[in-house]
């Protein structure tokens, strides 16, 4: 195929039986990544709000971390969309000429609102810390320290009042923002579900349950990722401290962890049960009503995608971690394994919705198989291939590393909120 004949989708779509000529898997791995990353953002924020709004004191440490981590995840939620667009240079158009009958049109608005809430909440939580840093770095020598101080001065936005009264106001503001943030986070993600659920042409996607299922699984994945990252970082710090014989006692860190982890795990299980119940309800309803599309849906779900849906998603991604978390005598290692499986399960759910929804032809007379490009040989096969997905997955950790340099969210330095 010559260069000018590259038809979007033809590269990774294999057709079986009768499929309309123009049908290909147009929404590929990046559209799987989009709801996955948005879900992580929303979930991370909800976890942090459990402490800030509902005063779950034992979640303080992970809440602080989740808040900052959700900031690192936030820009990454938009990256898959950008990588997926055929005309990425026109990405700002939905903000310039939004066509509001489209579910995607409001993305920029919802996304920016949410970004403002996260940014301002972090500012209120950390303002006291920023001011303290400006003072602490005043007489420190070296160009690095003076640069850091300038950054912190910028971050205070000129608000240097750290009286008890002012800090109490900060605290109150953070609490209000966290409260407002919960519905907005749910909206951001439920709305991603709406983008799929409202496509009446797609028999698998069209369901009013879709937004709710998306929210539940979002919270599950967000909590799981925050717990996982938290455990890994804390264990790493403990390990380094043990080796150095550092000031912080390793046992002290461990003690804090067990509490936080078991409490978060309880919330995780709750949302996991809600998510699975809704998904099963959706499945039963489709089978029971057996509309015109059911024949082909059944052949996809119980036939071609059986492995992906029932083995990888429901069994390995939901049932196994559920048992691992609920059995008594849970250890950190077992929790980590369960969390990894939960994250995998939610990823498979996104995959089965996005790719599964395109696994059958609109003619209901044929199938399409998705062969994800592994070794890229063009920009498109990079963007919409394994490496594009890995790029998106790594990005939040790199961003978090950078943000955490200025807004430490772990250990003793964490903000005052």
């Amino acid at each position, binding site marked *: 195929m010559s260069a000018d004949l590259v038809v979007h989708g033809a590269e990774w779509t294999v057709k079986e039986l009768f499929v309309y*000529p*123009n049908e290909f898997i147009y929404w590929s791995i990046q559209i799987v990544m989009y709801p996955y990353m948005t879900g992580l953002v929303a979930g991370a924020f909800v976890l942090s709000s459990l402490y800030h709004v509902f005063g779950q004191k034992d979640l303080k440490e992970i809440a602080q971390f989740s808040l900052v981590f959700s900031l690192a995840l936030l820009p990454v939620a938009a990256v898959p969309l950008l990588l997926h667009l055929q005309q990425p240079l*026109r990405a700002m*158009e939905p903000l310039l000429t939004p*066509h509001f009958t*489209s579910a*995607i049109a409001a993305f920029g608005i919802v996304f920016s609102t949410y970004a403002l809430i996260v940014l301002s909440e972090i500012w209120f939580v950390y303002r006291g810390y920023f001011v303290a840093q400006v003072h602490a770095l005043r007489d420190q020598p070296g160009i690095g320290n003076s640069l850091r101080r300038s950054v912190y001065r910028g971050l205070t936005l000129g608000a240097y009042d750290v009286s008890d009264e002012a800090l109490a106001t900060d605290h109150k503001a953070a609490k209000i923002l966290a409260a407002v943030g919960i519905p907005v986070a749910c909206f951001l993600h439920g709305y991603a579900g709406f983008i799929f659920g409202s496509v009446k042409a797609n028999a698998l996607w069209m369901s009013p349950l879709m937004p709710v299922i998306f929210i539940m699984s979002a919270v599950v994945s967000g909590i799981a990722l925050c717990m996982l990252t938290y455990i890994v970082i804390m264990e790493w710090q403990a390990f380094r401290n043990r080796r150095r014989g550092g000031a912080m006692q390793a046992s002290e860190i461990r003690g804090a962890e067990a509490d936080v982890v078991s409490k978060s795990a309880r919330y995780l299980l709750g949302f996991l049960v809600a998510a699975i119940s809704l998904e099963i309800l959706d499945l039963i309803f489709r089978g029971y009503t057996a509309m015109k599309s059911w024949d082909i849906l059944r052949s996809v779900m119980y036939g071609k995608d059986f492995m992906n849906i029932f083995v990888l998603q429901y069994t390995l991604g939901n049932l196994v971690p559920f048992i691992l978390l609920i059995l008594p005598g849970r250890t950190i290692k077992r929790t980590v394994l369960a969390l990894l499986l939960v994250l995998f399960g939610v990823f498979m759910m996104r995959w089965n919705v996005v790719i599964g929804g395109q696994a059958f032809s609109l003619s209901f007379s044929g199938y399409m198989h998705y062969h994800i490009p592994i070794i890229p040989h063009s920009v498109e096969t990079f963007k919409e291939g394994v490496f594009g997905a890995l790029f998106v997955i790594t990005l939040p950790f790199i961003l978090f590393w950078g943000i955490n340099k200025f807004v430490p969210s772990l250990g003793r330095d964490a903000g005052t909120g």
Partner: protein
Amino acid sequence: MSCSRREFLKNTMAGAVAAAMPACSVILLAPGEAKAMTDGSKLRWAFLVDTEKCVGCGLCVDACKTENEIPYDAPVSRTWVERYVITKDGETHIDSPKAGRDGFTTGEIRGEEIDPEDIDKAFFVPKLCNQCDNPPCVQVCPVGATYQTDDGVVLVDRKWCIGCGYCVMACPYGVRFFHPIHKTAEKCNFCYHRITDGKQAACVQACPFEARKMGNLRDPEDPVTKVISNERVQVLKDEYGTKPHVFYLGLDEKVR
């Protein structure tokens, strides 16, 4: 001039009502609505496909690809022809190799030879954009790059399309794709550049058997309108509520 408070209030009220009166009589119209209320309502394009007449020669697909500059060998097309072969065992065999561009010259369907003795019935069905009255593709476009004209045709603005593919997903008929060169959403537009210039659409002109015709639904004297209003016509997938405007004569229930 003296003025009591009661009088002042009375006059103010009267003045406000007088000022509001002309404002009430003004209705705000979107540009499209305004146009439709003046001259747009005289024209509504519709397409008529007589499946009994189609022989599957593929000249329509060929003409469309050339006219609308869709790369000739790319596996996408604004219009295509499907072949249906229903065998005695009740099986439906469907294919559309190269969108039917080169015609159907063998009895082979996707590598499977079908014995003519086993065939109950067989026919061809040309497909194209249905220019729906309630187009889901227009509804979901996040930037308004795809829109409906007053005469009912749905167009795509290649300069404004961001290439998100939501319209491609939203179309129940699978008529949309990405143009291999322009990298924007693409579909049949009834050859809008030709029909607004008084010419026939390329596929209509190329069809040697008059299986494809176009007309104005608002003109009761139009021959196509007469067929649509007087004969038994069918549309594709009306369960989606899209109100398609490509009408079929002799459509079989097996057609997807």
